[in-house]
């Protein structure tokens, strides 16, 4: 079969909209993930055993179930259960955000464990109060040290977005499906979609590597 990319190109408008949706959802979900991940980091060290157990169960659930199932559970089960009427957009951002949050928490925990105890000592020796030590000394260093892992996590979020097509969100994959169902040219459309995903993810990793190199100045 001969490939007719040139024929397809003019019709790829919707696909590009889908790509924008993908990036949009990706960024928002990533934001949710970062907030949840940082929050979990603190909850993990809580004095209350119940909180620590809840955090543990949350992490175990996210890690032990497929993301697709988490999305389906959130949209078709959890939301109706609580009585929340949320659209696929919100559900998607939340589901991926909750998923990412558990992994971000693990990444940050690893980074935290690698902060030399001397940093804590020097900060306490200066008489700095606890919350200042966390926000001005420790957390910045944690984030600088785990940049590549966080970038990898962002890439993962982008790669999770196609799953949202199952809850009717029109992102890149769904719009690709719609296009090749119309044009009967799945090869060209899917190859194009793969290319777009590749460009997005690869660019993110490259940028991440650049950030990582620049961050070396801020680390000992």
């Amino acid at each position, binding site marked *: 079969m001969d490939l007719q990319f040139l024929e397809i190109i003019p019709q790829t408008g919707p696909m590009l909209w889908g790509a924008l949706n993908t990036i949009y959802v990706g960024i928002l979900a990533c934001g949710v993930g970062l907030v949840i991940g940082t929050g979990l980091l603190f909850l993990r060290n809580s004095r209350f055993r119940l909180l620590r157990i809840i955090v543990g169960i949350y992490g175990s659930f996210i890690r032990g179930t497929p993301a697709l199932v988490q999305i389906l559970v959130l949209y078709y089960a959890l939301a109706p259960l609580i009585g929340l009427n949320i659209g696929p957009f919100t559900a998607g951002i939340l589901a991926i955000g909750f998923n990412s949050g558990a992994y971000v928490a693990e990444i940050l925990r690893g980074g935290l464990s690698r902060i030399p105890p001397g940093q804590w000592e*020097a*900060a306490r*020796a200066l008489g*700095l109060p606890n919350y200042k030590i966390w926000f001005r000394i420790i957390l*910045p*260093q944690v984030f*600088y040290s785990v940049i590549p892992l966080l970038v990898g996590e962002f890439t993962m979020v982008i790669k999770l977005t196609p799953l949202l097509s199952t809850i009717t969100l029109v992102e890149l994959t769904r719009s690709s499906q719609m296009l090749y169902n119309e044009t009967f040219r799945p090869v060209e459309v899917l190859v194009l979609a793969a290319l777009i995903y590749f460009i997005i993810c690869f660019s993110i990793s490259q940028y991440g590597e650049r950030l990582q190199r620049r961050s070396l*100045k*801020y680390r000992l």
Partner: protein
Amino acid sequence: MHKNEESKVVACELNREALIEIRNVNKWYNDFQVLKDINLSVYTGERVVICGPSGSGKSTLIRCINRLEKHQQGDIIFDGIELTDEVKNIDKIRSEIGMCFQQFNLFPHLTVMENLILAPISVRDLSNAKAREIGAHYLEKVKIQDQADKYPSELSGGQQQRVAIARALCMQPRVLLFDEPTSALDPEMIAEVLDIMEKLATEGMTMVCVTHEMGFARKVADRVIFMDAGQIVEENDPINFFDNPKNKRTQKFLKQIFEH
């Protein structure tokens, strides 16, 4: 040498109240006793050097002074305030005690100047401008004025330790604690740090210094203390300490040090 005697007399005359009072302090790590019945007083203006083999508890002792370590028995009293578990109490005391570490422990994500002004702004509520002024003053004192905007990763070990000293000085503490400040430095950089410490000493800074640098102790200290296995074994002024050690363990230690 007679400078030491002079300042000792001055200290005795002016200030009978000890700045740091350590009474019958005992400390255990689980079952292992790391400090045994320590009694020590440090007066304002005094320079105290503590030496001893590794594991003798000397680092643990000075870290108890600013409560980076907690003692289980006995009292540690700083400027009349007893060291307990009350948080407000601890932060306030720590802002009056400066500490320099063997590993420098500069904050790598902040520039030299930012390292210096962080605590004065956060803890003493100084304005940015005033803090920078003080920072610049102490940077000059430790002779690193032109590195103010560099990051610690861009400095040598000796420079980093001098920044660490300046950082402690910016809080204008009543006493400076040094925990083996030159042990992690390459030999050629030890002198620049010791020079600064000497200068501070001659300006009247109260210091408690754990170190292996005996030349420094001889020159600068008012009192030298030898610790071994968690106890204070011998305490004397430098002349008598080095020339006439009384205790057998002290003699053995000094012999080992000077044989190299």
